[in-house]
């Protein structure tokens, strides 16, 4: 039986864009090491330098500032550990790779909508005169909530701090201009925007000095050693270019997402859309249905061919509620019953209809009963 499969977990990873697949296939057949001086090596070097331009262009950066790394997690580590600042402040809703990079970092609180409280952030920043590094993500991976990063960057710079922005989830979904944001360091991941897994970049703006985390042969101008992942870089190149061209398509995705939320709330008015009042990525929705645990929901949806998640993929196997929802002041009950549905450029209305059909059936089977029991 050919059962319908609907993939709505794009924030975990996106399918490879056809342009990226072609570039990867070509590069996989190429054997040069970009550091070699012979013809194969020089051709490989050109591929790397060309990719730097496309990746920089996606976020309005300078190609020279692009440091290729193995992914978003490494980019975040390199920014926080290599930034050379003893004092580090991170928002409470950052990705675990930021939170874990400097476990002793000071937490910047967010409001109920998931947005950094700018007044408290500035008070916190000025209360210690040591030069600091501030890390706040552009858009949250679990809720899609977009942070006021330009304001955060301005406050950081006003007080002599470096500003790192984890743009892993935002890149390719909304327009980004690193100059406007004022970020000194920006993290990107290829596989979140339709490139291959295993490649990402840290964009370094201006004179920010970076202490390397992985040392060796002096690749990436001494900022990240190791033979370059040529197919990964070529795939990132093609995906970044395609993502930049595809930004306008997100109007359609926003409509699909909004339609999904409207239909779902019509069926289950008691459901809660997390961060609904805040500016959000056009493709992401996090929905709590208190009567069914998130785990039960994702299993039920998976059995019917709908793939979503209960939060970040890396921590989805762990027990315990999401630190993001907790930081928003949402109780364990909400946190434990929230699923993330994330769309992408190839998501269709039929995908949304499939999700709604399966979700509604699940709701009628398990969730509504819970409501009735509760009401009784």
């Amino acid at each position: 039986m050919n059962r319908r499969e609907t993939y709505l977990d794009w924030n975990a990873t996106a399918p490879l864009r056809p342009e990226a697949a072609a570039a990867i296939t070509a590069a996989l057949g190429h054997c040069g090491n970009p550091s070699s001086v012979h013809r194969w090596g020089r051709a490989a070097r050109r591929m790397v330098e060309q990719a730097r331009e496309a990746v920089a262009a996606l976020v309005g950066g300078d190609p020279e500032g692009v440091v290729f790394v193995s992914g978003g997690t490494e980019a975040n580590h390199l920014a926080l550990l290599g930034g050379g600042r003893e004092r580090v402040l991170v928002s409470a809703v950052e990705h675990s790779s930021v939170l874990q990079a400097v476990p002793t970092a000071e937490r910047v609180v967010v409001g109920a909508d998931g947005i950094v409280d700018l007044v408290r952030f500035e008070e916190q920043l000025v209360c210690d005169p040591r030069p600091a590094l501030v890390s706040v993500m552009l858009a949250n991976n679990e809720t899609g909530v977009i942070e006021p990063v330009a304001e955060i960057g301005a406050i950081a710079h006003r007080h002599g701090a470096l500003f790192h922005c984890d743009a892993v989830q935002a890149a390719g979904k909304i327009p980004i201009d690193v100059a406007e944001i004022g970020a000194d360091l920006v993290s990107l991941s290829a596989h979140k925007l339709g490139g291959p897994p295993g490649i990402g970049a840290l964009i370094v703006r201006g004179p920010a000095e970076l202490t390397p985390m992985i040392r060796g042969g002096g690749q990436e101008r001494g900022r990240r050693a190791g033979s370059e992942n040529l197919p990964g870089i070529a795939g990132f190149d093609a995906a970044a270019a395609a993502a930049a061209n595809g930004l306008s398509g997100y109007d359609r995705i926003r409509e699909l997402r909004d339609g999904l939320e409207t239909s779902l709330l019509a069926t289950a008015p008691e459901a809660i859309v997390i961060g609904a009042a805040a500016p959000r990525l056009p493709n992401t929705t996090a929905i709590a249905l208190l009567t069914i645990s998130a785990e039960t929901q994702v299993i039920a949806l998976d059995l019917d061919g709908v793939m979503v998640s209960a939060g970040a993929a890396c921590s989805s196997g762990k027990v315990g509620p999401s630190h993001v929802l907790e930081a928003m002041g949402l109780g364990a009950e909400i946190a434990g019953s929230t699923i993330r549905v994330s769309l992408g450029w190839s998501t269709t209305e039929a995908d949304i209809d499939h999700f709604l059909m399966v979700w509604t059936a699940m709701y009628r089977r398990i969730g509504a009963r819970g409501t009735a029991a509760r009401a009784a």
Partner: protein
Amino acid sequence: MSASNVALAEWPNTLPIYLDNQSSTPLDPRVLEAMLPYFTEHFGNPHSESHVYGRNAMATIETARGEVARLIGADSREIVFTSGATEANNLALKGAAHFARAHPSAGSKVRDHLIALTTEHKCVLESTVALQREGFTATYLPVEPNGLVDLDRLAAAITDRTLLVSVMAAHNEIGVIQPLAEIGALCRSRGVLFHTDAAQAFGKIPLDVEAMRLDLMSISGHKIYGPKGVGALYIRRRPRVRLLPLIDGGGQERGLRSGTLPTPLCIGLGRAAALAGAEMAEEARRLRELRDRLYANLRRRVPDLQLNGDLDHRLPGNINVSFPRVTASALIQACPSVAMSTGSACTSASVEPSYVLRALGLSDDRANASIRLGLGRFTTAAEADFAVDAIAAAVSRVQNAGGIPTSG
């Protein structure tokens, strides 16, 4: 059409002949075939446990992990995927050192001393130098003129503060294979961790973590006809070797290496390891014959050719030679039909003489006249013969021009 597509259309077995297999190897078509579906249709995030795409990806990664483990006699739980051998070497050295500092064993001596050969890969040496800046101490052990370690000297260098010894299994520039079993026995008897950078050796020569008493082993994908951007670190479980991660976050790889695993790259490494294991003996025999023939022919054509590094304890596909009265850079320019290098790719763009060859006792002049030729799985006898002709002719041209390269 981009440069990359042109290169692909011509690759392999076309000019320039690729004799730089220690720098990087072409992807085996069978590896490519195994990887491609995991780039495209099976794209699930392997850490997405909530749905079938994710679980299927992880199941395939676990199979690949088993293939890597099998090739070195390890358990798959002892393999941690990394972005390559450079990261694996950084993780092994810094991870072990940082763990020892964070968790000193009660009552016993502080272990804050590291030993590495002077000929180790830059990423090992840079890691130990970085650790020295953090307060660790390091001994850089000279090698014999043939590139081999002197075991007595190594034994003498180990102190009761020594935490770890790092010795490259097979050398990237001179191909020399170190006596790993002897080093392992020595380290075990002295209670010292033994790490080997096996980027060049894994898949080319038999390696066994039990027989060689290895605690940590760094592995690379693109040196064994697998993909770039992936490698692995073997970490012994019994007795358990503990490391602090370099990259923390989502807690993947049992907390030792966070970040989304690149499914197609892991699968490529697994397939490349399985192929290497199945074909190692036959491939080694063929490459040794080919290498010996190339070396013999080259010696006949270029009098006074000098070999660098031991010939008997050597990777079958590697040769490193010094040419009389030429510089390597002039020779490379004069011989564009052969892709060869002066040494490690990462530093081959620099004009400094190879620190490895200097460590063997070579003069700057001789080190600067040295070329590494790396034969591989796809090198044919005709290519090796052509390369001899091309190199010998180029040597004559450069010598006749008084060491100044002729154009083209």
